[in-house]
């Protein structure tokens, strides 16, 4: 991001060169943060046995990390903005590494909540948003592809880390595995070191106004476009995590064998990666670029439709296409979130906007799986949960399409009033 004191002449986004190194770093950051968060559930059995705890007590750890990572995303983007992305990521790497190191010596489950939940989550939050924002600085033409590759880290990381963690737990038990994971997560510092700051042409005009009010920095928040986007993200986050949590139990309850259910989850993960990269490449093509927001709306709507039809699918043969479709569109929209945000608020506010966007993900991520579980317990079937998820996703798509419709109407009006220039953020 902006190394505020630099007075160098801004360059146009390189769209290559060192940019690919940044993409690789962001990929590693996603691996070390999102994939590690997903793999925490592998430790549950060990914690349950060692501390004599119930499943629900250990499940809090994952929820804590996820929630704190998203909740403190604005902190991360603020640090990245004030100082530099490099400082933010390196600090985050040190914090999360310390968190995992302390949890390997933990003597109680509550201490694990603090070290593995709060401290590590805070470290992850400091890394995640600045890294994503920096990719947006380095790319313009091929932004979606760059984001697609960068975000595929969570899928590929989970794929690779899960068996490695199993092996580490077998060799060194959970304490040793956490110790080695803290060293692996320390690689975030290497990623941070590689994140060279860049001042983009757009920002040089702003560089003279160094003493910006914090209020005007956040002025994008009041844009109606961004407000609409924010509300749609709230609905999106409420609906998107439920199928991941409840697909396997639903498949098992429909009479599918354990191996087939596990295979469904693996397919979901792999197609997620494919969706990340291919959709990113697709929406970078000249024909689709002006319609990026519509592509995003389409992928969210398709996901919602898949979820609505899921309760009707009661066999492995029917759930397999569901897993493939859902995985593809899940990868698709994840890659497009930063792109769509930068399209709406502009590149100079991207870092802070991303912080707010991921902050909005936090509470729904925390609340929706337990609410889904409550629905399952009350109705004794998974129909309610999938319908809730599908409705939330469709609502998110609907709000955004309403936003696009209003924008188009507004643009027609402004074109008619020829004095005002067209909106600059397209």
């Amino acid at each position, binding site marked *: 991001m902006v190394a505020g004191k630099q007075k160098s002449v801004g360059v146009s986004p390189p769209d290559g060169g060192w940019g690919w190194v940044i993409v690789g770093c962001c990929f590693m950051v996603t691996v070390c943060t999102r994939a590690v968060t997903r793999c925490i559930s592998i430790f549950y059995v060990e914690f349950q*046995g*060692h501390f*004599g705890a119930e499943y629900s007590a250990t499940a809090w750890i994952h929820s804590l990390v996820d929630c704190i990572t998203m909740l403190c995303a604005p902190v991360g983007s603020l640090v990245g903005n004030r100082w530099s992305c490099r400082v933010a990521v390196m600090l985050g790497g040190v914090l999360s590494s310390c968190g995992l190191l302390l949890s390997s010596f933990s003597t109680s489950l509550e201490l694990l909540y603090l070290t593995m939940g709060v401290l590590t989550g805070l470290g992850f939050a400091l890394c995640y948003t600045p890294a994503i924002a920096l990719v947006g600085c380095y790319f313009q033409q091929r932004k979606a592809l760059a984001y697609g590759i960068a975000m595929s880290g969570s899928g590929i990381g989970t794929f690779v880390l899960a068996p490695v963690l199993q092996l580490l737990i*077998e*060799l*060194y*038990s959970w*304490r*040793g*595995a956490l*110790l*080695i994971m*803290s*060293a*692996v997560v*320390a*690689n975030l*510092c*290497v990623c941070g*070191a*590689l994140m*060279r700051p860049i001042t983009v042409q757009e920002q040089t005009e702003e560089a003279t106004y160094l003493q910006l009010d914090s209020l005007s920095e956040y002025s994008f928040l009041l844009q109606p476009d961004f407000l609409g986007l924010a509300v749609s993200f709230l609905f999106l986050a409420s609906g998107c995590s439920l199928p991941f949590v409840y697909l396997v139990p639903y498949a098992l309850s429909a009479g599918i064998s354990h191996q087939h259910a596990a295979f469904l989850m693996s397919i979901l993960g792999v197609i997620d990666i494919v969706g990340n990269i291919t959709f990113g490449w697709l929406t970078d093509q000249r024909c689709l670029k002006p319609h990026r927001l519509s592509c995003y709306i389409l992928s969210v709507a398709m996901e919602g439709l898949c979820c609505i039809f899921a309760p009707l699918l009661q066999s492995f043969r029917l759930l397999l296409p569901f897993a493939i479709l859902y995985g593809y569109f899940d990868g698709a929209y994840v890659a497009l979130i930063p792109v769509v945000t930068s399209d709406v608020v502009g590149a100079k506010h991207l870092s802070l906007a991303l912080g707010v966007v991921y902050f909005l993900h936090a509470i729904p991520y925390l609340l929706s799986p337990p609410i889904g579980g409550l629905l399952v317990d009350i109705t004794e079937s998974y129909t309610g949960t999938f319908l809730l998820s599908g409705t939330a996703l469709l609502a998110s798509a609907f709000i955004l399409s309403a936003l696009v419709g209003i924008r188009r109407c507004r643009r027609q009006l402004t074109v008619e009033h020829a004095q005002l220039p067209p909106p600059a953020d397209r």
Partner: protein
Amino acid sequence: MRPDGITNTEMSHDVTVKPDGGRAGARSCAAAAERSARRSRGRRMKTMPASWKLLLLPTLLLMTSCGRTDTKTLDPTQTPPASVPPLADLKREVVLKSENVTENIELRQLVRLFLECSLTADQNKLPNMTAFWSRDGQEIPDSRLTVALEKEQYGIQRLFNITSEEKVGTYSCVFENKVRADFVLATPRFREKRDKPVVSYVHDFVVLPCKMEGSENESLTWLWFKGNETHKERISAQPDRFEIRSQNLTSRLKLINLTFADAGFYYCAAVYAVGSTMNPIKLKVITFWEPLKPFIAILIAVVLLVVVIFLCEKQQSKKKVTEGNEENVDQNNIK
């Protein structure tokens, strides 16, 4: 079940016996007689004449039932212990064609085991077939029978009272043409076998779990042992070393303040009335140095990489500055 098949078994003997403790052998008959005599003696203290009748009747009953047990030849499988809780009934049927069949029977409690073997007749269709029962490969005496062909099948049945651990084994019905069915009796096996050792650290504690499949309200007795295949030592709860927590179908052994001597094999035994099953768990104790080695290696690599990256960047920026200066100098020269 064939109605006349009952006569082949010893069931008639059991039907006449009292339900609760009635399968009394000679020893228990005497004990029961002594008990009733004691009771009658007690009553005799209060009312003298009427007590004779009270004494006579139970003693007569006991003598008749005891007498009946003495007249029938006792079968080795029919020696029951003194006082037994009511046995559950378990029935297994096997239909044989031309190949031997093995049937595994999982026993969780003492049972009355009804075994039935039906051999489907081949082309010869002999009118009669001899068959006998055997236990652990040895023929049970007086069990050889000649069975008549009925509805294309030769049927043989027997009742076995599995009343103690010694009775558990392999019971087989063997037909004349060497076709046999083996009923293998065993206590339930542990389903989750852990082949990887449990790893833990010196001065830390470790929990070794054991879980058995079964119904919810079943309550098992658990025992823990340490040792190897040949020599096992029973573990009893010591406050600063071992802690055993057993609850229904699961049992947990907690070893506190581990040392290297605590490494080795541990066995948890689920004790049933008909025997016990053991599950081995291997414990490995290591120091913290083991995972510390890769940790330090990766950290050193990280620090080195960061230093190298910063040095390279400094060099590059120095180059740019000198290039920039050269350009300025050139421009000045041109001017």
